[in-house]
């Protein structure tokens, strides 16, 4: 085993975008609309036969969300990923957590990965708080015995003891995110990938969350942390990766 937890080599990801190139006409003639729709129909049918995804619009452009990104993260490091909106942070995390696959490049990950791209993924409004803890825990990759063991801890952390058997659709939004974060915070993976999920709840709860993340980082786990809150990043992370326009800048 080497001491490198994540190794990313020349990673790129492209998406196809559709554009409407048609000039806005002074008045819309039925004739033109029919002609354009017919043209689109021909194109989409052709795409479908070729097995390509259907894209709205007249012209298709390739867009590189990530281009030639390489970096290494050592075991036990806490690394912040920052960058402007659209810099490709979320795309990078999605690829790292195997939700989408890269267009080119390769990644080697050593260890079990858990990713939190969103709190409360898979929460079902009709189910009660108790049921949702089990559901969400399983989705995040915990086994039932593990959830049962941590159950009281999760409930106490979220401060929702009283509403455990109420369907979460009747929860206030604060209670909802507290419960959601609480389940996520009790994950114990070797590598944790977190995307801007800490900004939940009131100030006191946010502080509690940051404290929890600090504990995770200190416990010797590898943490990848995306945020716009520079204070949080500075507080938690040893080093930092700056993404810009799909490329990598330190």
């Amino acid at each position, binding site marked *: 085993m080497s001491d490198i937890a994540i190794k990313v080599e020349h990673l790129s990801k492209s998406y196809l975008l559709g554009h409407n190139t048609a000039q806005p006409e002074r008045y819309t003639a039925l004739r033109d609309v029919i002609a354009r729709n017919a043209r689109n129909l021909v194109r989409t049918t052709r795409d479908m036969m070729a097995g390509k995804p259907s894209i709205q619009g007249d012209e298709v452009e390739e867009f590189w969300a990530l281009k030639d990104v390489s970096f290494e993260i050592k075991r036990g490091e806490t690394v912040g990923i920052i960058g402007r909106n659209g810099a490709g942070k979320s795309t990078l995390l999605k690829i790292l957590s195997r939700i989408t696959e890269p267009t080119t490049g390769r990644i080697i990950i050593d260890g079990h990965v858990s990713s939190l791209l969103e709190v409360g993924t898979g929460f079902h409004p009709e*189910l009660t708080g108790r049921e949702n803890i089990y559901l969400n825990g399983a989705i995040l990759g915990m086994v039932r015995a593990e959830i049962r063991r941590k159950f009281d801890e999760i409930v106490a952390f979220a401060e929702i003891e009283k509403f455990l058997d109420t369907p979460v659709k009747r929860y206030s939004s604060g209670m909802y995110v507290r419960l959601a974060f609480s389940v996520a915070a009790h994950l114990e993976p070797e590598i944790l990938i977190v995307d801007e999920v800490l900004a939940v709840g009131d100030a006191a709860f946010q502080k509690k969350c940051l404290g929890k993340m600090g504990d995770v980082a200190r416990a010797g786990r590898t943490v990848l942390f995306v945020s716009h809150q520079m204070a949080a990043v500075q507080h938690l992370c040893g080093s930092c990766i700056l993404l810009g326009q799909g490329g990598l800048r330190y």
Partner: protein
Amino acid sequence: MKPAVDENLLVITPGLAERHYWRDLWRYRELFFVLAWRDVTVRYKQTVIGLAWALTQPLLTMLVFTIIFSKIAKLPSNGAAPYALMVYAGLLPWQLFAATLTGASNSVVGNANLISKVYFPRLIVPTAAVVVSLVDFLVSFVILVGMMLWYQFLPNWTILSLPFFIVMAFLASLGPGLWITSLNVKYRDFRYVIPFIIQFGLYVSPVGFSLTVVPEHWRLMYSINPMVGVIDGFRWAILGGESSIYLPGFLVSWILIVFFLWLGIRQFRKMEKSFADLI
């Protein structure tokens, strides 16, 4: 560069076929149970009569079919079996097929938030959705038992083979189900195809009438619809000596079931990696 020998080492490259696909699926079995449990629990939440909904639909369909095909069209039943019982024996697998197809095809699009935020083998989603239709199937099975008591119809040993035919019905619906599920992610047109298939198929398959009504020389051709073999098998198992299996057709059905299953799984696996981008 070290070769990926370590079991824990995960290599992500584009277009890489999952080496541990089936092992991964097994590892996520917990999630499968939880999702199936969620779908079953949520289904009848905030309904007054709850599970009874699973009973009303087949019961009413059976009544209508019996009246139309037996009383109005005067079609013969299988041997001495009561017509209503024969219809119901065909309706059971058909309902399983319809529910599986609908449930599976909407499952991936319906769980879009999960697919785009968490990784797990995507095959879990449609298969877990299908468990709901199995539960409904078991519930509607109760009616069959009730009807047997009512008609004082005693099944013979063939009923023991029923689990085999249940599996067959299940596989017959899973194949096309998976195929349509994956296509539905890319082209939502398929959402409109499903109700049509189900409505159309109900009359094309021998649900309301016996296979013996179909002329002999057309029967093999007719068995291209895999549900023909399934329904025929169900009737043989439930009605015992009153119905016999049409073997050539039965084999044709099996071949098609296996083919569709292969096609469905292949299509699903080919597309599942891009689900998050397309959904």
